[in-house]
């Protein structure tokens, strides 16, 4: 632990357990190509872990995917990420990690606004990205588990996510 106060992020009114996660359509990137896809069309195929993360290349993004890979969540649920990064950057990320995951590209962070997980970056004028946040969704997009970062940086509660997957999937 550090001996100074970590930056707190503002209160958020993000969707929570029992609510329907907002639907959206964005380019969805896999290891081979990208195409427009809606969240609803993805979750229709099975329980889905929706992971909002900072732009590709930032160390929290690397840490988050490293941990998700090590825990093997993709073996039990569909794993989809969302960041402001372009499809080209997502393709690079998928070469390194995020095994079996697919990544939505949301450069305008409008999806972040819909989930109230926007993060206006200090020192990067005009750049708003997604704060780390994780939602476990069932086939109807009902939220089974929700976690949203309250500090910058803060990392997902991986043990809670694993328990939520065990409970609901």
């Amino acid at each position: 632990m550090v001996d100074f106060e970590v930056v707190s992020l503002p209160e958020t009114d993000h969707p929570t357990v029992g609510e329907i996660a907002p639907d959206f359509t964005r380019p969805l990137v896999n290891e081979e190509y990208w195409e427009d896809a809606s969240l609803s069309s993805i979750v229709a195929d099975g329980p889905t872990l929706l992971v909002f993360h900072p732009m590709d290349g930032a160390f929290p993004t690397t840490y988050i995917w490293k941990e998700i890979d090590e825990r093997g969540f993709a073996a039990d649920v569909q794993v989809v990420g969302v960041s402001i990064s372009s499809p080209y950057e997502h393709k690079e990320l998928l070469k390194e990690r995020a095994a079996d995951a697919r990544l939505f590209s949301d450069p305008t962070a409008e999806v972040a606004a819909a989930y109230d997980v926007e993060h206006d970056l200090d020192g990067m004028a005009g750049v708003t990205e997604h704060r780390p946040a994780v939602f476990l969704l069932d086939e109807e997009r009902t939220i089974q588990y929700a976690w949203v970062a309250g500090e910058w940086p803060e990392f997902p509660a991986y043990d809670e996510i694993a328990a939520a997957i065990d409970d609901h999937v």
Partner: protein
Amino acid sequence: MSDSDPHITLYRLQACPFCERVVRVLDELDLPYRSRFVEPMHADRNVVKRVSGKRSVPAIVDENTGVKMSESANIVEYLTKTYGDGGVA
């Protein structure tokens, strides 16, 4: 995809003029299609090779007819013959 699932899938490269040529014809014929974007690097286009036999774009897959083809001139000719005035489909 929930949006009425188009029968035609176009494999394309961003800003590729041959791909845009095919898009123009698809639009003229009012044909719904799904766009799948691939990378500039030829070597990274295995998906295109799998569906069309070659790594070049544009390539289309038409589930309506079972046709899979590449080369924009061929695709334009196919689309026009199949879906244009007096076309077979």
